[in-house]
């Protein structure tokens, strides 16, 4: 097990290298630089050049790339060009926000999705099944950001139940945190909920049709016990396998949800950095996201092995 983890960690390094190289490739090609963020439209070309010089942007790109890698080896992701703090500091400030949004959405989609899928499988072919699966399909097909906009309109402006955006940290005020994160979580989780529901249903159907279930029923065990203890337990395996992809999808969706609801998370940090060309933040932020993605995948694989004793970690 330890060997497996170590081997996976080692294998992640080339991927992370590639991620940073791809990012550099993009940054090399992208026109414009952050110097313009300090100036307005009335600025002269000389002012633009001067600000670029002051920011050290007049050095050639390969040189800047070299500096970045050398600093990386010392564990330093550099200083943001526009935010007046270190890249690591900026990321760490934002991380809890994105993690709480993504984590909460994950929990909500799994709980509600699995519940819906189980009900649909148990009531296979009947109205509840059709209804659930139709809802799931619609949920899958809704554009998240549009759902967010419509929810803001309906539930935050027309009927002000929830606030329309912004973020309150859990440690500051738990109730306000919950109020503020309710709408974003729901609109983010909607899509994944549909996905989980459908998968749970088909997985459950496959499991419930197997011999050992019939045996358990024949033994006279109560139906809910059979469904949950035997059926669901085995059906979870395929769900766990796609959890990694789910988290990736949620992270990507969180990026957009943060824009719609003005939540100061990692996604907004990176999008803002891309649009204002804050190169160190783009570099560091994307590397960080890749790290999260790889870490989640590793955890999912471990979880998979823990759940299914037939799987041996190769």
């Amino acid at each position, binding site marked *: 097990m330890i060997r497996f983890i170590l081997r996976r960690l080692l294998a992640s390094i080339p991927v992370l290298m590639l991620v940073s190289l791809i990012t550099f490739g993009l940054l090399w090609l992208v026109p414009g630089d952050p110097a313009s963020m300090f100036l307005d439209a*009335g600025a002269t070309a000389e002012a633009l050049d001067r600000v670029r010089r*002051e920011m050290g942007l007049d050095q050639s790109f390969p040189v800047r790339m070299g500096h970045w890698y050398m600093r990386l080896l010392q564990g330093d992701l550099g200083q943001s060009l526009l935010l007046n703090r270190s890249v690591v500091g900026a990321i760490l400030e934002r991380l809890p926000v994105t993690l709480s949004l993504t984590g909460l959405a994950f929990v909500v989609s799994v709980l509600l999705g699995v519940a819906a899928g189980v009900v649909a499988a148990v009531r296979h072919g009947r109205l509840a099944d059709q209804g659930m699966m139709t809802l799931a399909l619609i949920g899958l097909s809704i554009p998240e950001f549009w759902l967010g906009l419509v929810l803001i309109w309906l539930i935050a402006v027309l009927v002000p139940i929830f606030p*329309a955006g912004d973020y309150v940290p859990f440690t500051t005020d738990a109730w306000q945190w919950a109020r503020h994160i309710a709408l974003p979580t729901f609109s983010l989780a909607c899509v994944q909920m549909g996905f989980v529901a459908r998968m749970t249903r088909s997985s459950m159907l496959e499991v419930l049709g197997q011999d050992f279930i019939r045996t358990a029923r024949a033994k006279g065990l109560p139906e809910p016990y059979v469904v949950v203890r035997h059926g669901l337990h085995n059906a979870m395996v395929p769900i766990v396998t796609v959890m990694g992809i789910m988290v990736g999808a949620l992270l990507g969706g969180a990026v957009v949800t943060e824009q719609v609801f003005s939540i100061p998370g990692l996604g907004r940090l990176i999008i803002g950095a891309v*649009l204002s060309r804050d190169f160190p933040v783009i570099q560091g932020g994307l590397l960080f996201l890749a790290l999260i993605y790889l870490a989640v995948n590793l955890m999912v694989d471990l979880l998979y092995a823990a759940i299914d004793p037939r799987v041996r970690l190769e």
Partner: protein
Amino acid sequence: MKLKFLHIALAAALAIGAAAPAVAQKKGGDVIVAITNAPPSLDPHATSAQAARHVNLHMFETLYARDEGAKPVPDLAKSVAVSPDGLSYVFTLRSGVKFHNGKTMGPADVVASIERYRKGGASASLIGAIDSVSVSGADQVTVKLKTVQSTFLGNLSSPRAPIAIMPAEEAAKDIGKASPIGTGPYKFVEYKPDSHVKLERFNDYVPNPAYKERDGFAGAKIAYLDTVTFRFIPEAGARDAATMTGQVHLNETSDESTAKRLKGNPNFTVMKALPYAVQVLKFNMAQGPGADLNFRRAIAQAINAEEILGTAYPDLYLMDQSWVYPGSPYHTDRALLKQDVAAARANLAKSSYKGEKLIFIIDSIRPNVDAATVFQQQVAAIGVNIELKVGDWPTIAGIGLKSDQGWNFWTHGFGIEPYEGPASAMSHWVKGQGQRKADPVIDDLFAKLNSEMDVAVQKKLFAEFENRMADQAIAINLGDYGLFQIVSNKLKNFKPYRITRMWGVWLE
């Protein structure tokens, strides 16, 4: 007898006291202001961005500052003595002015700040005429100019990228690295990127004794509030929502539908800051059909400026096409552009334009995109084929500010230049900066304006500039637009200005 008189006097005094304004200023309270963008830097010398001005001009002051009518008046200076040849300015500084770190402001700090700006300030060219700055007395600074500059005090007091006075120790640091330590009525508390900047009242601040009340960026800047927090909320909807739910007391800029909805709402006042900026349509005169006068004239006649402004800034525009704002002594009541499609077609036929696709660059600010979209449809009617190239600001700035290639049209707002005065309004077109090709007539007028001290002659020169701009269609002044500012009724005595001023206002 005497006692009765005393009673009457007392009663009279009480009556007068009661007749005083029912709303008395209250000290204290925390105000939150929603602004669109975060300041790129809290070092006032480092940036000319509007977002920075909102914050920095609460913490920093300048020797001279603009009053409510944009006239330069003394702020940190007490007075100035100008030599008869116009080349020497001796500033007498106010005494007892403290920096936020407790240090008393002295002439060495002023000299250091000005020198720093000269070397690397965001608009260093403003004081390019300076030959030398030096301490010339216990509270005196002497500035010597290379040539006579009628606009020197105006430049010194420019709020755009202000020549703020900071302690000499801060001025010694590189541009962008100075800590936010100034002389202003509020001092820095904290800055959380992507969230807010927080300021608190500077208790050792002494409002300028020469004034009774606030006056533009000058005057008596009395800070009643305990703290001011500027929150950055780029999304219009989120800013409005925050205002309506009471999370912020002031929304820097809102839109027409919200303004309409809040009319008559007892909790808010909707204020119009109009005019706030000029919407300019720029040509690239260095290459492409923009170099051809007939083409430019054709465009000027093809468009309907009111429809462009009315779509981009519904209920928030002013059809005035002078290059300074109404109210400025240099303002002229120019005839507005008239749409004449037939004449446009005729001029287009005479021009070198052959139907090729032209590029219109715009940043992603919605009114600019809207203006360009309406413009595109209007000129399509006479056969001009335009492709809109929307980009983020770094991309567009890279193309429009530096290059002759890759663009034919650009539109954006000019806010601070028309406010500052004729020289500022003209400067963008000098040496071909805005239009990419120098116009010798404009360059000549600008040089004359800078050395002409007689206001009447200056007015004539400026009028000639405006005529030249129109006649040669160097750029098109579509008109003025404004801002809707939504103020909570708890915040008293707020008046819209170039920035959301938080001095002279109080919370009830």
